[in-house]
């Protein structure tokens, strides 16, 4: 049993869709003002488009594609810093493939590799660590990108670097954390969100408790949800049941993977290796306090920024792009004047077009014919 096919069963999908349609009819006030449900995670966005779930749902139910794709919120300035570090002749710069095509002011990592920089795509930070072991005369830098899902992998890799005394390995840290960003979204007056599908794989690390304030203080229901079609529809149904009953609670649809408390071992590793930064920049959203992490003093020796001192970068987003508004649900991708023109997946202008988990790329790939 792989628990993939089971969660794609067509008969069960249809039963869920029927139940969702029935519940929506029980909320007639929603005919005028559609329900807006934010799926926070890019993995959900991708699945919703790939399986065409949004098209199967009643018209008065809209998905808002949230900021939970780490590639999409990667600021240009950080890419410029990656390029600056990768330009050192002794450096082997390693990254997840997702970041290769994000453009900074001076092009992307892919462009830099074409021009001769030693930049390698790895599947795991452990592969980068192995490169450091195999190339003691080189400096191996791993670009640590992502939310709490990828953070433990970076933390454990640094613990191993220390255990194996690999001093030619370092981390360029771009790990960010979702909760402060959700909080800042909820504080913006013109953002209307009725409920959240919360990211299953962030949650398997942090657990359900950190979302409590959304239900308690903001009275929005939230359901931690998996990534197969049945998961997403069931998560949605659980949200609608809460909304219909006038409740707001944190519920967990993805219990097969997400324990209530998250992963204690991962949390311990994170606490040892990372601490909160005062503020971090998000592309399209600006600076958000306590939304990113840096290495703790105990691991500072593995900090690539200390080792290579890239210049601090602040690059303003192009005023024509509407990435920030798409990220906060204020407009749909095809409302951006650059969509499908200056900005396409093969020549992405904004970061939401780069990653297949970005709302604009998903729209382009699956919705262009109707856009």
């Amino acid at each position, binding site marked *: 049993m792989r628990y993939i096919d089971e969660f794609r069963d067509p008969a069960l999908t249809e039963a869920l869709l029927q139940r969702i349609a029935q519940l929506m009819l029980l909320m007639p006030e929603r005919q005028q003002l559609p329900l807006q449900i934010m799926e926070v995670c890019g993995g959900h966005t991708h699945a919703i488009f790939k399986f065409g779930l949004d098209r199967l749902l*009643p018209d008065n139910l809209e998905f808002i594609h949230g900021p939970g794709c780490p590639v999409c919120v990667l600021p240009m300035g950080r890419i410029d810093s990656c390029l600056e570090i990768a330009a050192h002749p002794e450096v082997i710069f390693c990254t997840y493939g997702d970041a290769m095509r994000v453009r900074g002011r001076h092009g992307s990592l892919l462009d830099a590799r074409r021009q001769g920089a030693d930049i390698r795509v790895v599947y795991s930070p452990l592969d980068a660590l192995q490169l450091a072991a195999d190339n003691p005369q080189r400096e191996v830098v791993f670009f640590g990108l992502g939310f709490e899902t990828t953070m433990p992998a970076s933390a454990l890799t640094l613990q191993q670097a220390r255990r194996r005394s690999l001093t030619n390995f370092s981390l360029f840290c771009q790990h960010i954390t979702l909760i402060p960003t959700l909080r800042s979204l909820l504080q913006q007056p013109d953002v209307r969100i009725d409920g959240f599908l919360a990211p299953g794989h962030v949650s*398997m690390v942090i657990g359900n408790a950190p979302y409590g304030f959304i239900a308690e203080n903001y009275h929005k229901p939230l359901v931690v949800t998996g990534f197969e079609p049945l998961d997403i529809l069931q998560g949605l149904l659980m949200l609608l049941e809460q909304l219909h009953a006038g409740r707001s609670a944190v519920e967990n649809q993805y219990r097969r993977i997400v324990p209530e408390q998250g992963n204690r*071992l991962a949390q311990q590793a994170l606490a040892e290796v990372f601490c909160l930064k005062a503020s971090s920049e998000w592309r399209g959203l600006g600076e958000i306090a306590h939304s990113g992490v840096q290495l703790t003093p105990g691991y500072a020796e593995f900090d690539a920024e200390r080792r290579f001192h890239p210049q601090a970068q602040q690059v303003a987003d192009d005023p024509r792009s509407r990435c920030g508004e798409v990220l906060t649900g204020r407009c749909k991708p095809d409302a951006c004047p650059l969509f499908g023109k200056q900005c396409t997946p093969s020549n992405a202008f904004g970061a939401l077009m780069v990653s297949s988990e970005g709302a604009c790329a998903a729209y382009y790939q699956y919705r262009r014919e109707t856009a």
Partner: protein
Amino acid sequence: MCLGVPGKVISVGEDLHQLATVDVCGVSLRVNIALVCEDSPQALIGQWVLVHVGFAMSLLDEQEALEMLAALEQLRAVGLERPMPEGKDALH
């Protein structure tokens, strides 16, 4: 980049720092198990785990998976007895 895939632990090393072999859809992956190993690595053999960027991130709780599917079956059975609201065909 935040998606994991379920796989079954086939073999483990002596201690938790050694990579385990996990079968993911018929492909053998070398995977770090330190984040899911509370006691001996051997106890993990045969278990399902969620694999993400070279790490087993969570143990898959088969009981929970089966209960969820059973709840959906129940919903389907009830739905079959109940006609759809007028003018609404869920699939169109």
